[in-house]
């Protein structure tokens, strides 16, 4: 791959951990810079730590620190916390959001953008984030448009879109990836505990799957 930057856009701290962190670690090992726009601080999350250590009011502060540590462990040098509020992305003006993304795309000239596949990503924030990224890229002339790889996990995604066309083996960096996941302590402590007790569950974290978004649909 060339050394042009990769731009990752997700709404919640920890969205980058499950499906993308291994790829990010591999890219950073190859010297490819990654910029991560994280739209919210997951202010409305239900997990308060296990055992509970956060309140509704302190959760954003904890999640911000977790996000910074997770980004450091994933090799992300440019983390941008965008200041939107959890659960409200679908109620923001889609074009205004797209314009924010276009501004960053002009600044970075990325070779690849990564987000959620709109309509196939379960959480309304995920779908709205992906839809605004698609809108942003649609506004660019096709010759200036970076490649768009989408993550999705709704039950119907394979039926509708077919199998993911990009499948990346990240087993060589699995320990680092799990460390990124574990950095989101307030959200992931129970999962990390399970993964330690039953290492066979780690298998599904060793591949990362993406659907390349096609703009002529």
């Amino acid at each position, binding site marked *: 791959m060339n050394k042009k930057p990769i731009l990752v856009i997700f709404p919640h701290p920890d969205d980058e951990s499950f499906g993308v962190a291994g790829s990010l670690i591999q890219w950073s090992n190859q010297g490819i810079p990654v910029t991560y726009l994280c739209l919210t601080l997951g202010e409305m999350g239900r997990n308060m730590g296990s055992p*509970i250590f956060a309140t509704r009011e302190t959760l954003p502060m904890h999640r911000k620190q977790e996000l910074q540590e997770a980004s450091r462990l994933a090799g992300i040098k440019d983390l941008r916390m965008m200041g939107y509020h959890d659960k409200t992305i679908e109620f923001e003006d889609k074009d205004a959001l797209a314009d924010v993304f276009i501004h960053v795309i002009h600044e970075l000239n990325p070779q690849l953008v990564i987000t959620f596949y709109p309509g196939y990503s379960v959480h309304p924030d995920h779908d709205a984030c992906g839809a605004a990224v698609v809108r942003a890229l649609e506004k660019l002339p096709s010759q200036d448009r970076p490649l768009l790889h989408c993550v999705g996990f709704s039950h119907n995604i394979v039926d509708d879109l077919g199998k993911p066309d990009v499948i990346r083996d990240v087993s060589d960096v699995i320990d680092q990836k799990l460390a990124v996941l574990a950095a989101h302590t307030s959200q992931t402590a129970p999962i990390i505990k399970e993964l330690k007790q039953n290492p066979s569950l780690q298998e599904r974290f060793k591949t990362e799957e993406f659907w390349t978004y096609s703009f002529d649909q």
Partner: protein
Amino acid sequence: MKPIEQHLVQPLIDTFKNKQIYVHLETTNGAYATHTDQTFHSAGAFIRNAQVEFSQGKLTGEGPFRVGLKMELGWIYAEGLTDFEIDEKGRLLLAGHNREGKLAIALELSEHPF
């Protein structure tokens, strides 16, 4: 947070009586409930920084607890509350955590905007 006890929390509610205060009220079953169980009807709501005034506020129940705040023209109601805290900003945080420790409801009162 600490488990709610009637004799500790009722006086705290009373300190917000007959004042212009700000409320955060929220219920949630999580954005993934229907993804996990397709028969589950996901429902939730939140309102943040609603400016209100109540003339009577009561904590009831044996745990989980209920709170009702009587306003001039209506009511604020919350059930399923289990834990409380006065935070460093003097705000009363009430929360209901389910068996797995996940937040199910929050009712918070503050003299200043959240």
